[in-house]
């Protein structure tokens, strides 16, 4: 079945380190996305036509362009057209942050617009200043709503990072392929075992995070 290959040499360790590369890229992009996306989301609620139009185009671009196409544009296109030489990892970080910020911005905008007007009116009638309203009334509600959604964004980021092997980053799938190729003669069936293990590794990385998001969502429902 091909599982024996994993026990040879340091193959199992190499796979885990490959997963580490994927997780590192996704966590860095997720942190950038959450920070930038929050700012963008607040900007989108400002009702300034120019800003609104700009973000509409940005969000629609991200909505319809596959991340793989964006990766190719940044990694191959930028080099050819402008002579900018990015490492594959930088290109991946740029693309995933670009994508993630748009997703996050839309979530923040949704959460902000989902706060009923009554909340603002009641705060004002209780004598709170605008800043106090944001700090003590609106802020905590938004944060509660956003934490599960941001955690979900992290799992989506991890899943999307599997694409980086297509621009030559050696992450878990690529390491898997290398191990399979290197052991082609000795264990020709390695592909089954290795890819099954990688499948389960991704599951092991994402499932706990999804469960946490679901748990928090339920806990803070009201």
């Amino acid at each position, binding site marked *: 079945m091909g599982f024996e290959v994993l026990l040879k040499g340091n193959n199992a360790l190499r796979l885990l380190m490959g997963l580490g590369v994927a997780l590192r890229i996704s966590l860095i992009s997720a942190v950038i996305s959450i920070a930038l996306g929050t700012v963008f989301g607040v900007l989108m609620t400002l009702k300034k036509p120019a800003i609104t139009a700009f973000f509409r185009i940005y969000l629609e671009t991200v909505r319809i362009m596959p991340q793989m196409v964006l990766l190719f544009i940044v990694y191959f296109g930028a080099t050819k057209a402008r002579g900018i030489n990015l490492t594959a990892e930088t290109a991946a970080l740029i693309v995933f942050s670009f994508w993630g910020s748009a997703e996050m911005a839309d979530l923040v905008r949704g959460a902000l617009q989902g706060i009923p007007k009554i909340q603002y009116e009641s705060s004002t009638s209780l004598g709170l200043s605008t800043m106090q309203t944001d700090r003590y009334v609106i802020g905590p509600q938004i944060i509660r709503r956003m934490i599960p959604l941001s955690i979900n964004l992290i799992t989506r980021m991890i899943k999307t990072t599997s694409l980086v092997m297509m621009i030559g980053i050696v992450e878990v799938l690529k390491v898997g392929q290398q191990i399979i190729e290197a052991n082609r003669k000795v264990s020709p069936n390695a592909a089954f075992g290795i890819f099954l293990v990688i*499948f389960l590794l991704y599951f092991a990385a994402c499932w706990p995070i999804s469960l946490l998001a679901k748990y928090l969502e339920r806990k803070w429902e009201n």
Partner: protein
Amino acid sequence: MNFDVITSYIPLYTEAFFLTIRIGWTGIGLALFIGVFVAFAQHFRVPVLARIAGIYVELFRNTPLLCQLFFLYFGLPKIGITIPAETCGTLGLGLLGGSYMAEVFRSGLGSIPVTQEEGALALGLTRRQMFTYVVFPEALSLSVPGIVGNMIFLLKETSVFSAISLMDLMFTAKDLIGLYYNTTEALFLLVIFYIIMLLPVSVLGSILENKVKIRTYGA
């Protein structure tokens, strides 16, 4: 940007475009079918099926499509199950999408208030009529935004098919870049064709969402 090059590439892209569309929409069809089936199994708590459906949804929602395709296309032949690339693509997309669609349908079904069911029963409908004429249509209209979102997501995911050597848009672009080094032109066409493929879905989807929204609140 060299326009002669672009014109000469268009036929290649058109061919790839139709392949991508075919696999994409067949996959979405399969995903809707699996999704409804799985959501029903979970909603009605069918003894063994509901458990299996739960495991399936968790497994496929928490792994990347690329990983699933590699397992289907390179892994399974080693234990004697060989699936052609195109079927693999459709199946992979269907399985991935099925788990996402199932969640959408399930939350749609779950958010129908009990009063709707009680009202239907009080009017003398049988349980079957209640489900087919009241609960299901309402759940479906609540699910529309989620379904449209998933359709766009799945059409975008088709871009990973090049990894299992299907000649889709991405594969064509990569191939042409490798062969002739006309990177700018190849990427330009790639973007154009993805816009042709996805913009109508995105726009029609928003229109449909607005239509259903009005109906839901019954103004």
